[in-house]
C-alpha cells in the first residue's frame, strides 16, 4: 500500500516527530534530482500524517490509510501534472478566482476553503511544482504565507530554481539526494532489468531509479553508444544522426512531431551531460563520482576554444528545439558542431 522510500525514511520520520510536537512547518519543499523518490516520500509522509494512529508510520489498514491509497481521502488534495498529462499547472488549479475553465478536480483554494472533514490535518501535494506557470505560482503565494491551522502544503520539484524566489523562501526546503548506485542497481534489478543494463543505468542516472527507468524506456544505452561513436570520430556525424532516429525508444508527446522533438531534446541533454562529465574529469574529479565517468573522457574536444565552441553550439541547439525548429536538422547540427570542433582542434594541434 505505502512503501517506505529508500534512504528518505529518516527524513520523513523527523517530519512526523515535528508534527507530534506541533512544530511541523506549514510549507515544505521536497527538492532533489528527478526519480529519487521525492513524490513517494511525500505520499508516505502524508499517509503517516493522516493515519488514524499518526503522526507516524502509516499502518495501511485503518480507514484513512485505505482511503488515501484508493484516492478517496477527503482531506488530501493532489495536483499531479504527470497523472493529469499536462505540461503546465494552470492558475485555475490553484485559485478559484482565475478566469480560466474550472477544472473538474477543483482548485487548491476551494479545497482549503472548508474545514477538514475527518481529522485535524489537511494536506496538499503539488507534484513537479516547477510546472506551475507564473500566475499559478503568484496565486499560491498568499496561501503559502498564511494557511489556516492544520494545513500542510508539500511542493515537490527537481528544478527548484524555476520556482519564484518568494515561493522558495516561504518553504522549508527538504533536500533529497540520489541513492547509492548499489541501491539503485538493486531496485532496477527488482524491476526485472538485466544485471549489466541495471548497473549501467543506475550509474548513468546518478543513483536515481526513476530516471534510470526513463532512460531504459528511451533506449539510452544504444543512444549513448551511438553518440560515443560519432563524437570520437568512429562514425560520421550525419550517419549517427540518421541512426538515432532508427533507435527504439518511447518519448513523450501526443503527435509524431512532439515525439521527435522529445527525442532530439533528450539526445541533446545527454550530449550536454557527457560534455559536463568530460570537463569535470579533465578538472580532476574522480570518475566514480560522475554518472558517465570514463565513458565521457575520450569525448572532450581538445583545446579551450574547441570546448567553448562545442558548448555554445549545443546550448544554441537546445534552445532551437524549444523554439520548435525541425528536430532532425538541430540534431545533425549539434553532432556536426561537436565532431567539427574536435576535428579542427586535431588539425591545429
Amino acid at each position, binding site marked *: 500500500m505505502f512503501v517506505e522510500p529508500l534512504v528518505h525514511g529518516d527524513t520523513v520520520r523527523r517530519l512526523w516527530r515535528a508534527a507530534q510536537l506541533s512544530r511541523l512547518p506549514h510549507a515544505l519543499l521536497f527538492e532533489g534530482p528527478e526519480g529519487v523518490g521525492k513524490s513517494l516520500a511525500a505520499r508516505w509522509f502524508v499517509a503517516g500524517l493522516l493515519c488514524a494512529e499518526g503522526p507516524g508510520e502509516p499502518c495501511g489498514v485503518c480507514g484513512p490509510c485505505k482511503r488515501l491509497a484508493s484516492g478517496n*481521502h477527503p482531506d488530501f488534495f493532489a495536483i499531479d501534472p504527470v497523472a493529469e498529462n499536462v505540461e503546465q499547472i494552470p492558475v485555475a488549479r490553484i485559485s478559484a478566482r482565475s478566469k480560466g475553465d474550472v477544472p473538474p478536480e477543483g482548485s487548491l483554494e476551494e479545497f482549503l*476553503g*472548508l*474545514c477538514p*472533514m475527518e481529522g485535524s490535518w489537511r494536506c496538499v501535494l503539488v507534484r513537479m511544482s516547477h510546472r506551475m506557470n507564473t500566475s499559478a505560482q503568484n496565486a499560491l503565494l498568499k496561501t503559502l504565507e498564511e494557511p489556516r491551522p492544520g494545513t500542510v502544503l508539500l511542493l515537490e520539484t527537481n528544478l527548484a530554481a524555476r520556482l519564484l524566489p518568494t515561493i522558495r523562501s516561504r518553504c522549508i526546503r527538504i533536500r533529497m539526494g540520489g541513492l547509492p548506485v548499489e541501491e539503485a542497481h538493486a531496485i532496477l534489478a527488482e524491476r526485472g532489468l538485466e544485471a549489466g543494463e541495471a548497473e549501467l543505468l543506475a550509474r548513468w542516472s546518478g543513483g536515481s531509479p526513476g530516471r534510470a527507468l526513463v532512460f531504459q524506456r528511451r533506449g539510452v544505452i544504444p543512444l549513448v553508444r551511438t553518440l560515443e561513436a560519432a563524437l570520437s570520430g568512429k562514425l560520421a556525424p550525419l550517419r549517427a544522426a540518421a541512426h538515432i532516429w532508427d533507435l527504439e525508444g518511447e518519448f513523450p508527446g501526443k503527435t509524431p512531431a512532439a515525439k521527435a522533438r522529445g527525442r532530439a531534446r533528450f539526445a541533446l541533454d545527454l550530449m550536454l551531460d557527457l560534455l559536463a562529465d568530460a570537463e569535470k574529469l579533465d578538472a580532476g574529479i574522480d570518475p566514480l563520482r560522475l554518472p558517465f565517468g570514463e565513458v565521457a573522457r575520450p569525448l572532450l574536444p581538445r583545446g579551450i576554444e574547441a570546448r567553448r565552441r562545442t558548448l555554445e553550439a549545443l546550448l544554441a541547439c537546445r534552445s532551437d528545439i524549444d523554439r520548435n525548429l525541425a528536430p532532425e536538422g538541430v540534431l545533425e547540427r549539434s553532432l556536426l558542431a561537436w565532431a567539427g570542433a574536435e576535428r579542427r582542434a586535431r588539425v591545429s594541434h
Partner: protein
Amino acid sequence: MKILCEREKLREALAVTTSVIPSKSTRPAVENVSMIATGDALELIGTDLDVAIRYRIEDVKTDEPGSVLVPARVAADFVRDLPAANGATVTMRTHGDNFIIESGEDSCELSTIDPDEYPDVASFDEADSVPVMAATFTRLVSRTGFAAAREAGRYAMHGILTQCENDELKLVATDGRRLAIASAALEADGVGPLQAIVPPKGMHLFCKVLDDPTERVRLQFGDSQFCLKTSKAEVFARLIDGEFPRYDAVVPASTENRMDADTATLTQKLKLVANVTSPDTRAVRMSLDKGQLTIFGRSLSTGEATAHMNVEFEGSPGMISFNPDYLLDGLKNCEGDTVCLEFNDKASPGKFTLGENYVYVVMPITVDI
C-alpha cells in the same frame, strides 16, 4: 448483510440520499451510497464531501447486520423502477463482493467496494445540540441566504454565520455590499455562545429535508461541521474555514433620517424605475422630502424614469442611491406591510428593517445619477 424493508421507504431514502451524491467525482468512492444495517434500522449515507446526509429507515427486518458500499445512481434507479406488482417489500443482501436487491421475481446484482474507502461521515451528538422549530430555521435561512457572496475567492463571506448567544439563534450573511441579519428566540435557555460559518449549499440541503414546519429539529455546532437532525435524517455541512467579517460596526447605531413606506408600493415603484437602468449603471436615487419619496433612475443608452409615492418621513430632506436589485432581494423577504429605511447621509449605509428581528443593511452607491 441481509435485510428486508418496505419498497416505498427505501425508494424515498435513496432519492433523498442520492440528491447529494455527485454522479461524477474525482474521488470514486463518493459516487456510492453507504448502507449500514443495524438492529431494526437501515442507515443510508451519501456525501459530496461538502455536505453529507444520514437517512434512517426504521422498522426493517435485519437478518444479518453489516455495511456495504454500492453504486448510488444504479441502486436508486433500480428501486425507483421496481413495479408495484412485485409487492411492498425489497430484500437486500450481500453475496461475496456483490450486493443483490430483490423484489418479487426481479433482482439486480451490484458490485461493491470496501466500505473503509468511504469518507468518515460524523454522527450527530445529542449532548450539546440546540433545539429549534423547523419553520424558524428555514425562515432565518431564507431571510439571509440571498445576501451571501457568490464571487469566487471571498471564502468567509461565502457562508452564513450561524450564532447562538443570548438565548437567540442569529444568522448573518454578507457579500461586502449588503448585510442581512435575522434572529429568533431559542426555546432553551443558557445556550452558547456557539458559532459556525455554514456554506449556503449546506443550508439549502437543511431546508430541503425539513418537510414538516412544526417539527422540532436539533442543531449541533461542531469544530469542523454543522449538523441538523430531524426525525428521519441527520444532515452535515462542512464549515467554511475562515473568519467572518466584523459586521456589527456596519449596522448604523443611530440615524438622523427615517422613512416608513408601504412594502408593496415601494417594491412596485422600485421595479418600475429599475427597468430603465442598465447593468453598467444599476442604481436608483431615492429623494425624500416632506412625506414624499421620489425614485429616479437613468441610463445613458435607454433614458430615465421617475416614480413618486407617499411615505412617512422624519429627518431633513436628502437623497441616497442604491442598487435596486439589492433592495428588491430584501423586500422579497419582508413579511410586514411597511418597511423602514434609516440612514444618515448619502454616503452612509442604509438600514432597512424588514420585520421583527430582521435587519438588512445596504451600502449606498455614491456616484451621481
